[in-house]
């Protein structure tokens, strides 16, 4: 009797719309192609970061504060990071999206004007590169955790 009433209470399983299934399969396919799709964009992001890094005066590595990068480069780095933040998650790379979003936040907070801030930005860009190149979709598993730990990203 108890079994019967339990059965009665069970809701019928909702049928999955084949169009949604089809669309999800398509996203999975796009996820596999994502590293190739964004490779040139990633190169541009890294190149932009390299320019900003090169604007550093010679003695900066000794702990001196660095000259702020030009406004144009700062804006370009922000724009490209924002683009990654926008599309990476939708393509199944939420970790890239999170890292790119973190770069945006750091730039907004003026991180590019200090050595420590620039280091934090650089580590995140490096992590983005590794996550994409190693195709660490989703949460990236243990390998992603290791990368984030090695790069001291919380």
């Amino acid at each position: 009797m108890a079994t019967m009433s339990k059965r009665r209470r069970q809701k019928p399983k909702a049928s999955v719309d084949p169009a949604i299934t089809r669309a999800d399969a398509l996203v999975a396919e796009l996820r596999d192609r994502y590293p190739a799709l964004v490779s040139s964009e990633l190169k541009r992001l890294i190149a932009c970061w390299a320019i900003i890094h090169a604007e550093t005066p010679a003695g900066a590595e000794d702990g001196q504060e660095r000259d702020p990068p030009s406004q144009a480069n700062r804006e370009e780095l922000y724009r490209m990071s924002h683009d990654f933040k926008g599309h990476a998650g939708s393509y199944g790379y939420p970790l890239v999206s999170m890292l790119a979003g973190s770069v945006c936040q750091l730039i907004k907070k003026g991180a590019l004007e200090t050595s420590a801030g620039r280091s934090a930005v650089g580590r995140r860009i490096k992590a983005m590169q590794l996550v994409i190149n190693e195709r660490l979709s989703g949460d990236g598993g243990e390998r992603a955790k290791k990368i984030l730990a090695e790069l001291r990203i919380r």
Partner: protein
Amino acid sequence: MRETDKYGALSALVIDDNEHMRVLLKSLLRALGVGTIHAVASAKEAIKFLRTCLPDVLLVDWMMEGMTGIELAWHIRNSHDSLNPYIPIIMVTGHGDKETVVAARDAGVNEFLVKPVSAQALAERLSSIVDHPRPFVRTKSYFGPDRRRQNIARKRRERRQGDIEVTTPEAIEYFVSLVRAKMADGPVIRVHKLATGDR
């Protein structure tokens, strides 16, 4: 008929300055059964496109260089040269905070799609537009879909009483309810324009 089979006759325009998002949104729309899909890379291109072709729904990215998605939504709803101020707009954005949602709503956006975009979320927004279209209302400072979608009957009673322009049968019903409320309770209601839906 499956939920999404009904979108075959639907045409959509994707407006996003990022190529990857355009590719993704176009692919998702196609997979969901939308019959005709166009895409442009800027709000300016969209305005130009809308002069020659009127799709049934727009998917607009918020953050675009030049004219933003919000500015485009406002232009479509309020500009005198807008060919269809009633066109449904889905705003796509990476920010789901309250301020962003309110700003989009106040610009006349119908639906809000927060990144990361999923097939399910997009299908729900399309369904909302197709199956539950909201009436359009006009106030002194706003023209667009009724911003109070939850519990419409209750909200109607609570709605602020100001200048309104009635544009749909549902809005006419609301207007009538306001007049009745005025007769019963005597609040001040100033209705200075009664339109038929044509602009």
